[in-house]
């Protein structure tokens, strides 16, 4: 019974990993760009949720949407102000710029909100669901389900809509897309907006049950790197699968071997997989 509970918990957390990683994989796949500040986007989503909850007494729906909207604007603005120029430079400039950006965002939050740990002012969705002895938090279930749905939504947006095909066209061949009347700058800004928004909404959802501080982003960035590489750069379904897997492996190894092994096993499997299948689970070779 407990095992089932561990598995369900792991998968639900994995869905949240998938959500913020899908944002990272989008720009990674589209623009071949590593964003070291992605974890900070998650962190800002948490603080936006906090602000909305404190100032406007907004509930989970309100603050998640606010976080998504806020981060979308931030992502698009960053594209025009910084990323577009950096992309023309060498790959190292990407690391340089987004690492500097990560520090800047983290310590801006530090300055504004202080380094103290905060929790949202109310508890939302605090009920428990008892499924034949399997205890699941309402918040966990709602957050996990919403994250999975949003990740799938992102995939559908990319594959089934006109905007999505324009995005992919720009990713395939910027010049050809331009000849077809697509404005690549707009599309890439849109991708950055979507990427940041997915991180922001994931952060807002996680803020419901996790205490957080400005330092929280680093952990998520590392998880996202693993998930994206496992899933294959640019593959949203890959991110979903890999996110669920990482969540599950973490939960199972924490349960069987103890919590310190969960990262050892995740990284170990990750390195092993890179040996055998460097293009990731669902990535193109």
């Amino acid at each position, binding site marked *: 019974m407990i095992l089932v509970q561990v598995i369900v918990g792991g998968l639900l957390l994995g869905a949240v990993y998938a959500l913020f990683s899908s944002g990272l994989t989008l720009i*990674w796949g589209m623009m*071949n760009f*590593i964003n*070291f500040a992605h974890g900070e986007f998650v962190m800002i989503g948490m603080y936006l949720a906090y602000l909305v909850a404190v100032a406007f007494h907004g509930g989970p729906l309100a603050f998640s949407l606010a976080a998504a909207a806020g981060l979308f604007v931030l992502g698009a603005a960053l594209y025009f102000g*910084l990323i577009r*120029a*950096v992309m*023309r*430079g*060498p*790959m*190292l*400039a*990407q*690391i*340089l*710029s987004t*690492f*500097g*950006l*990560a*520090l*800047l*965002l*983290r*310590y*801006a939050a*530090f*300055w504004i909100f202080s*380094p103290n740990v905060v929790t949202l002012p109310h508890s939302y969705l605090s009920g428990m669901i008892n499924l034949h002895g399997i205890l699941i938090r309402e918040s966990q279930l709602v957050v996990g389900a919403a994250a999975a749905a949003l990740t799938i939504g992102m995939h559908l947006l990319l594959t089934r809509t006109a905007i999505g095909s324009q995005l992919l066209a720009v990713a395939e061949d910027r010049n050809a897309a331009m000849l077809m009347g697509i404005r690549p700058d707009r599309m890439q800004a849109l991708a950055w907006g979507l990427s940041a928004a997915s991180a922001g909404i994931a952060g807002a959802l996680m803020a419901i049950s996790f205490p957080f501080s*400005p330092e929280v982003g*680093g952990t998520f960035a*590392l998880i996202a*790197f*693993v998930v*994206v*590489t496992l899933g294959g*750069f640019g593959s949203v379904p890959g991110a979903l699968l890999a996110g669920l897997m990482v969540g599950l492996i973490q939960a199972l190894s924490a349960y069987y071997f103890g919590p*310190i092994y969960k*990262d*050892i096993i995740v*990284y*170990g499997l*990750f*390195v092993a997989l*890179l*040996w055998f299948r*460097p293009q990731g689970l669902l990535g193109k070779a």
Partner: protein
Amino acid sequence: MRRGTVALAAALLLYPWLVSGTGSSAFLQDMGANVLLAALGAAAWNIVGGYAGQISVGHAMFFGAGAYLPLLFFHHWQLPPILGVPAGIAVSLVIAVLIGFPTLRLLGHYFSMATIAVAELLRIIVSNWDLAGAAIGVQGPAISRGWWDLIFRSAVPYYYIFLAVLALLLFVTWQMQRSRIGYYLRSIRSGERAARSLGVPVRRYKLYALMLSATFTSLAGSLYALKTGFIDPESGLGILVSVQLVITAALGGAGTLFGPLLGAVILVPLQTATNTWFGGGGTGLTYIIYGGIIVLIARFEPGGLLELWHRHISSRFNKRAEARDAA
């Protein structure tokens, strides 16, 4: 170029003496040693990250091995830490070969991610490994037992040791740059497929570069540990250690001989000064400024600051030289 190098060498040799008249000589000398150490690490990374274009974000694994071994030699057997330096290099070379074989097949970001993962894996393992001091870390000799412990009150001896090792590394890099290896690495950086078709043994030379880079990164780690007298998983193997090496090299100019040194000369005093001015305030302003400057450099000078130098200053020199020649 020649004259510039001589001037640079003179400035570096004289620095401890130049600052000795100030009210903060000890601190400035210490900072000078830290600059050289950062330059050493970045220049070591530069061999594989800059010249060969394989962007490792996991060089902390070599730095950490180099830092841990000397202090473990002391911790377990009370030996002078310096005896552990070759052991650190040996361990780093083993890691480089073990890691290099599989990961150097990977291209671009995959290689970067693989190196991050391996370094994190090592950090977590060491954090939980009692023989390596676990999360608590390992201390060097608390009180000097003799000169061989290399514990000095002043930073000046460290400064010159670091300078000597840095000079050696720059010499090796310079030689490499002019030799066949350098040519091979450059061709690998500009395109592996093309390099292979030209008959360059790509994987072998990537591995050579990684091994050379690992050797000197490990040395940098050892020197850090000798000077600091303490190492723990975060300061030896943390991701920030790796990122710092990358940033220092990239900021100055990756794939150039003096880029890493320039990066260190700018970055370390910048870090120290912002921390000295704003750190005590406890508002995080240190990192806002530091992060902001990094972003600005990446935005406006993505190729590193050495390019800026070449464009503005050395071109002016050249013009003057041309004018002189014409006259």
